[in-house]
């Protein structure tokens, strides 16, 4: 009767079992490393987008009585990016554990280190303005339904009955323009001498704007204040309003 060692050797020979080639282990090591670096980059970018959205949130909406502050905070948290960011942290953690000595480090060290790295590089991306560029790129290339999910400022401005409206200018005249909202509904936005325009530039076709005003059936919106979607500058009165014709 064969002893265990002999059985194993004979199995190796009969089934022609060979050690897996070294390159497979090296490839796995580099794959783990690359995924880790990619996850850190994605995590940093996700964090920078969170910063961008929080920084550019219209917090003063609660001061003009349109929202309660707590509701505004909860509704404007960029949940999609936060969930993405947390998922990336989980991926970094799992990935780190796959490294040869990854198990040597306590969970909190790995989590806190990856958090610190992503916050640092995310902050750096924000300082360099990369987050705004990325946000605009995503905005320009994603369908409107995705934009609404990714950009948590949108729901706050998607309440025409509460006097808050946002969208893209698709037609422009001296005293009014046509605005397409995220649901592709067309609003006739009317301007008058009292309308405040918080923008450094003139209104142009395809501009993304947000408007505070009054909705009148069926599709009229009387604008009291117009702001550019991305930049929030101090409001300034522009009497009388004369948007140029393109």
């Amino acid at each position, binding site marked *: 009767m064969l002893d265990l*060692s002999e059985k*194993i050797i004979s199995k190796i020979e009969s089934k022609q*079992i060979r*050690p897996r080639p070294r390159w497979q282990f090296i490839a796995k090591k580099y794959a783990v490393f690359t995924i880790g670096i990619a996850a850190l980059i994605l995590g940093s970018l996700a964090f920078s987008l969170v910063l961008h959205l929080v920084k550019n949130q219209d917090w003063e909406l609660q001061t003009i009585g349109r929202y309660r502050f707590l509701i505004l905070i909860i509704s404007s948290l960029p949940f999609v990016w936060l969930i993405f960011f947390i998922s990336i942290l989980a991926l970094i953690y799992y990935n780190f554990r796959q490294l040869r000595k990854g*198990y040597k480090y306590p969970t909190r060290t790995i989590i806190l280190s990856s958090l610190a790295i992503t916050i640092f590089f995310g902050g750096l991306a924000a300082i360099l303005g990369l987050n705004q560029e990325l946000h605009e790129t995503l905005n320009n290339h994603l369908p409107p339904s995705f934009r609404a999910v990714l950009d948590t400022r949108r729901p706050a401005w998607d309440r025409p009955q509460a006097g808050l409206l946002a969208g893209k200018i698709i037609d422009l005249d001296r005293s009014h323009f046509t605005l397409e909202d995220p649901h592709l509904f067309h609003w006739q936005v009317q301007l008058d001498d009292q309308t405040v325009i918080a923008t450094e530039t003139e209104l142009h076709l395809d501009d993304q704007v947000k408007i505070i005003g009054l909705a009148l059936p069926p599709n009229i919106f009387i604008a009291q204040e117009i702001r550019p979607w991305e930049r929030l500058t101090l409001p300034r009165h522009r009497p009388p309003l004369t948007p140029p014709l393109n």
Partner: protein
Amino acid sequence: MLETEPQDREKTDNELVALTLADKGNFVYLLHRYEDKLKRYIHRISSFSQEETEDILQEVFLKVYKNLNGFDPDLKFSSWIYRITHNQVISQHRRNLARPKTVEIDVNIMNGLKAEFDLNQDIWDTDQREEINKIIWRLKPKHRDILILRFFEEKSYEEISDILEKPSGTVATLIHEAKKEFKQYWPQDIN
């Protein structure tokens, strides 16, 4: 039966790994070196029968052979092979855990346990041995595993960390908790 040549007993595990990669026939020396140790270890952490243990061991050695190129020489080979064995046992889901089980407790292990757990050094009898057996199998699996590695397999914290793939700090905490749980079950009248 394949014999181990005397000169191969002097070779380190890492040298034998390199020799096996050059010629698979040398794998037999690693088999002989670890067969009994691992068989004993599997018996200690599980309730597998002799036959099941041999099947597991066969799987372990085949895994080791297939993954020899992935062995990290910074790690002790013994830690690596114990880790593979441990994981193989775990992957069987400890399905035979319900069976009555005993672990071999020789004089050295008993003395080590007595010193470590502050048990009465003068008492060395069957009662104590049976009690230890019972307690070992009442412990939480994670505590049992770590006590067996520490006191039965006599592995260092570093080696346990490599086998269980846990940070050294966690190993120290687990050992502390395992000792506490062990003492909690230890009857005062025996001590």
